[in-house]
């Protein structure tokens, strides 16, 4: 198709060709084309087939109001090709077709509409129950939109930005640009969002006069130039607003250009005030076959010519209800389109100059006439026009029907922001009654159409937005209001929804193949509220997000039910414009904490797992039972990186009081050079943390917590002392200090080689605490602990020195075959010793007594109430609680999985941890069971997922399983 190359309004660059592939052919378009306009230029008229009836669908709008032009592009289904910019090399396919879009073998379903009345799915898809699993699959295969492979990986780069603005303007037409300019005058930060790839809105392609000197398109480009040159206005083009939330949080997404670093990016704007100037879209005219290829909206036909240089047809009939329709007819006639008739719904109220101009060109305008039917199969061949009362009909041959009942404001952003909308009889629009705080509307969406009125309305909205944030005084608002009031106000709108037709093939919603007949059926069944009819008939629930039926549905329902109350619009929800989940995901950086030894451990073959916020080395070989790691600790010496432990300094005159409040033990008797192990409970007596406390000086303590609780510890202390006014402070040193556990019978020999301090059992006994330096440089806090049941030194080292200390220990331990061990080995070692890990041996309901840690609880603490003590006193005499017990499997070759249930006729407990113990040769573990089952010797039935009733059996045994006297850790 030849393009109109010389138009000053063009948005394509005819010097830059771009190719696409469709139906095996390579087609040419131009830079600036959308996929749909490029296909249209190459003769494509049927773009897709409809959801249910496989009706041919063509280019109807250019802003994605319906799914008519949804196609598969580069493997991505449901791409709205009418507003997707063409990129060189794109591969395009029709979707939901058997055969091709032009010849679809499933097209016969169009004759079966009588079988699928409103609510078809609800009424039929449940009986007889037996056939529906089969029938449903067949229906799903026959109907629907695009399909995507489960393995499809989204290509491209997805990004996100977070903006703060004083004024955010949604809509980059004339009103939005005027609002931006007005707001920017005061120097505030302005963000302007425009869904098209360029500013200008509906003025961008119109050649009507703005004033005597310039046409509208020239004025819009002049405004765009001004807006884009002002530093405090940030313009985001090709950016669709998708959500509005509390406190004027606006969300949007931007489609990247070829040279942008992103394919799409998600945008969040926190704005003090918001102006919505999204203009209007057209309200579809409903008649028989109103979605036939060759039927299109006024702006679609006009923009095809003016923006893309494509005359949309050869001979066009217009059926319109507004002056923009007449304006388009006039302009397209001048560009070479034959127009045998213009049918105008209105009897009066026209712009006389437009009527006069059409008359000069001998284009007849039929007032009070409307299109009743589009004829033709895959394209329009003729049109039936009728008077509004349906008494006179006339058939006109043509290849294009330009149809539009009226306009409807794009008020989705206002509805998302919870504005109350009401029907306005003068304009026929749904207009906001109460705008949300600091939100304003302006431009054509308020009903005005006169160019100066549109600009003044936009400027007023911008000034109101400034006044709302105290950046301008009320006098300025009054001036702007007066200026706007002097200009022409809102135009009277056309109210007609449907031509006088029965409605069997008159589609109110293209996406869901919902006809006027379906709406009547729903109403006849008792549905009288548009929201319910929408759900029952699916009208407006498709990818177009109600763009086609959004306005017509409530108008039609109101008319058909002869409702005395005003029509109410249906609700819209975010995302207002559909986009990819990948866009919402954004860059999605994985934010994990790593210990100072992470890189080293990785080089050493560490296999990492995400544990809470940390990445930790769980294994050091592919033997996930960790036999060698475990036995090396038992027999030799191993090193574990425990840097994730929570570490805190607590100090101040009331630090001890806080410790007494939070810990169950008496913390006043911590001896110098000794550690104190204790636990913290919540108010229910349930254990939430355990660790050690060291007294470093008067009113100054160092404490550790479990890794998972470290992030909450300071808040936990503050919360439980919030009413006391105690003077104490906490510093989180978790990341400040790394921790190395040197464990095993040779641990002392290794440590002795790198420190000058006396680390003999006499000088540094079990539960001791020492501070010393390595090479007179590295300060170390050392503790004698026995979590894994062996002689162990826990070295707390400044993080930056961790690698150096680890290297020194490795060198020192080489003669003893020192090895890394990971979390899983530690897990088994401590289990053999009967030591618990909170979260593994406990859950939310597990209290201190259940775990056998009652010995930690000091009941005589007088000065401070202990968190959880009241509940523990009550729980002491409760026989119905779970108890932590040791278990040994009857089959020593098979340990149950962690979390397996202990059952008889009901659940009686669960396995906390169980492993094959390489140390003892037995399959042992710990389980939380009802107290009646906790006696030694009790036989336990263990049920695992998918065990097919083949249960495992264990008996309760005493703990620990290894070194019950604790000699090894005290050696």
């Amino acid at each position, binding site marked *: 198709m030849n393009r109109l190359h010389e138009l000053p309004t063009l948005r394509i660059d005819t010097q830059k060709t771009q190719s696409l592939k469709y139906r095996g052919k390579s087609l040419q378009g131009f830079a600036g084309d959308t996929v749909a306009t490029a296909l249209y230029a190459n003769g494509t008229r049927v773009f897709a087939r409809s959801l249910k009836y496989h009706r041919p669908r063509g280019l109807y709008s250019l802003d994605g109001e319906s799914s008519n032009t949804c196609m598969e592009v580069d493997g991505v289904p449901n791409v709205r090709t009418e507003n997707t910019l063409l990129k060189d090399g794109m591969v395009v396919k029709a979707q939901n077709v058997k055969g091709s879009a032009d010849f679809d073998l499933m097209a016969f379903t169009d004759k079966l509409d009588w079988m699928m009345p409103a609510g078809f799915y609800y009424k039929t898809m449940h009986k007889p129950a037996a056939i529906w699993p089969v029938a449903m699959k067949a229906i799903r295969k026959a109907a629907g939109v695009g399909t995507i492979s489960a393995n499809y990986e989204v290509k491209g780069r997805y*990004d*996100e*930005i*977070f*903006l*703060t603005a004083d004024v955010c303007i949604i809509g980059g037409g004339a009103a939005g640009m005027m609002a931006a300019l007005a707001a920017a005058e005061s120097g*505030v*930060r302005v963000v302007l969002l425009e869904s098209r790839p360029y500013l200008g809105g509906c003025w961008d392609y119109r050649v009507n006069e703005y004033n005597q000197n310039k046409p509208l398109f020239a004025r819009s480009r002049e405004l765009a130039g001004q807006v884009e040159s002002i*530093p*405090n206005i940030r313009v985001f083009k090709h950016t669709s607003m998708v959500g509005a939330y509390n406190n004027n949080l606006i969300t949007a997404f931007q489609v990247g250009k070829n040279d942008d*670093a*992103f394919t799409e990016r998600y945008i*969040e704007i*926190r704005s003090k005030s918001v102006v919505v100037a999204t203009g209007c879209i057209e309200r579809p005219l409903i008649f028989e076959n109103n979605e036939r290829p060759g039927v299109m909206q006024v702006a679609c036909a006009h923009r095809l010519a003016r923006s893309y240089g494509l005359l949309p047809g050869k001979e066009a009939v217009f059926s319109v209800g507004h002056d923009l329709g007449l304006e388009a007819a006039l302009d397209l006639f001048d560009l070479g389109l034959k127009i045998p008739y213009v049918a105008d719904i209105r009897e009066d109220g026209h712009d006389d100059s437009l009527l006069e101009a059409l008359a000069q060109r001998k284009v007849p305008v039929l007032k009070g006439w409307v299109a009743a039917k589009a004829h033709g199969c895959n394209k329009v061949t003729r049109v039936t026009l009728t008077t509004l009362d349906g008494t006179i009909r006339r058939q006109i041959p043509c290849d294009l029907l330009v149809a539009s009942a009226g306009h409807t404001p794009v008020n989705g952003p206002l509805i998302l922001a919870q504005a109350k909308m009401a029907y306005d009889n003068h304009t026929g629009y749904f207009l906001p009654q109460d705008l949300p705080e600091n939100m304003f509307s302006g431009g054509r969406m308020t009903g005005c159409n006169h160019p100066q009125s549109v600009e003044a309305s936009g400027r007023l909205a911008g000034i109101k937005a400034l006044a709302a944030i105290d950046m301008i005084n009320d006098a300025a608002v009054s001036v702007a209001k007066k200026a706007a009031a002097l200009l022409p106000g809102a135009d009277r709108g056309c109210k007609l929804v449907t031509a006088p037709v029965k409605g069997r093939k008159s589609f109110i919603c293209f996406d869901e193949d919902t006809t006027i007949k379906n709406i009547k059926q729903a109403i006849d069944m008792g549905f009288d509220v548009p929201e319910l009819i929408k759900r029952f008939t699916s009208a407006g629930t498709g990818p177009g997000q109600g763009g086609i039926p959004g306005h017509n549905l409530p108008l039609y329902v109101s008319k058909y039910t002869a409702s005395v109350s005003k029509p109410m619009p249906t609700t819209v929800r975010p995302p207002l414009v559909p986009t990819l989940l990948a866009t919402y995901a954004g*860059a999605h*950086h*994985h*934010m*994990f*904490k*790593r*210990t*100072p030894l*992470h*890189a080293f451990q990785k080089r050493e073959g560490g296999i990492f797992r995400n544990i809470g*916020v*940390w990445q930790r080395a769980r294994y050091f070989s592919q033997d996930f039972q960790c036999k060698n790691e475990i036995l090396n600790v038992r027999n030799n010496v191993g090193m574990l990186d425990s840097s*994730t432990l929570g570490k805190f*300094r607590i*100090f*101040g005159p009331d630090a001890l009081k806080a410790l007494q409040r939070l810990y169950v033990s008496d913390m006043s008797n911590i001896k110098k050079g000794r550690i104190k192990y204790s636990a913290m409970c919540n108010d229910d007596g349930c254990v939430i943390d355990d660790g050690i406390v060291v007294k470093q000086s008067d009113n*100054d303590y160092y404490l550790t917590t479990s890794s998972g609780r470290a992030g909450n510890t300071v808040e936990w202390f503050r919360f439980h002392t919030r009413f006391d006014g105690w*003077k104490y*402070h906490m*510093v*989180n*040193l*978790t*990341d*400040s*200090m790394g921790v190395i556990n040197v464990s095993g019978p040779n641990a002392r020999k290794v440590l002795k080689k*790198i420190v000058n301090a006396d680390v003999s059992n006499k000088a540094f006994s079990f539960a001791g605490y020492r501070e010393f330096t*390595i*090479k007179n*440089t*590295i300060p170390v806090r050392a503790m004698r602990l026995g979590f894994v049941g062996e002689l162990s030194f826990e070295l707390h080292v*400044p*993080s*930056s*020195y*961790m*690698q*150096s200390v680890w*290297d*020194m220990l490795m*060198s*020192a331990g080489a003669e003893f075959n020192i090895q890394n061990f990971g979390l899983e080995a530690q897990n088994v070692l401590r289990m053999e010793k009967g030591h618990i890990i909170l979260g593994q041996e406990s859950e939310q309901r597990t209290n201190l007594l259940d775990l056998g840690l009652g010995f930690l609880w000091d009941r005589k603490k007088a000065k401070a109430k202990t968190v959880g003590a009241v509940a523990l006193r009550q729980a002491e005499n409760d026989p119905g609680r779970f108890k932590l017990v040791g278990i040994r499997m009857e089959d020593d070759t098979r340990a149950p999985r962690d979390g397996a249930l202990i059952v008889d006729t009901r659940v009686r407990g669960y396995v906390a941890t169980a492993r094959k113990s390489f140390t003892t040769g037995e399959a042992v573990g710990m389980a939380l069971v009802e107290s009646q089952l906790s006696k030694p010797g009790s036989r336990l039935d263990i049920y695992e997922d998918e065990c097919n009733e083949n249960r495992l059996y264990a008996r309760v045994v005493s703990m620990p399983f290894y070194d019950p006297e604790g000699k090894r850790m005290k050696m």
Partner: protein
Amino acid sequence: MTGIQRYSPVTFDSSVKKSETRDNWKVVLTYHEEGPGPWLVDLSHKTRWDLQDSQIDDLSPNGITVPSDPGTCAFKKELLVNRMNRTQAAIWHLGDKEMILPDIQGCTDVTEATVFLTLFGSDAFLVAEKLTALDLRDPARTTPFLLQGPLCHVPCQIVVLEKNTDMSGGFLLTCSRGYADSMVHAVLDSGQEFGLRPAGETQFGNWVQTVQDQTM
């Protein structure tokens, strides 16, 4: 036996042009091909202290009065004092000389607790807005000022030292040391389109000097 060295939690892929050893830290002064900016500089070796006291207004660590309002900062003698809340301030030493912890009980050395980075130069705030919803360019605030909140979903302390209308300027940030790898990866990835590159301490020193000259 292995020698003693302190390791920063940050490693850049760039090749080092010039470095020096300071208090066992290997401090990179310049990298090859640092480019025209924006730049990301690792300052993790610089001394940071945490100061807590119920009478914090009466304290003047190293002779600098703690600013009275949370969110405000004092920058003097290469010390940046950031008032965090009613009882707490963060003190960052931006110079290259060793600092002795003041003899105040409420003062804790937290140099090792956090990763310390700075992002500055042209388009610095275009990079930042890809990472955080915090308003680093709040026109109501005078530099230097402190923000406490998420950057890349990680709790951070951020001090804006310079902000200009053309999105240039810069800020310092600290977050838990363990996040260093993830944070650096996220920041560099976000800054790729703007030419963000790692730079050495010299580049940072020049910028800080410029900022100080402008504010004096």
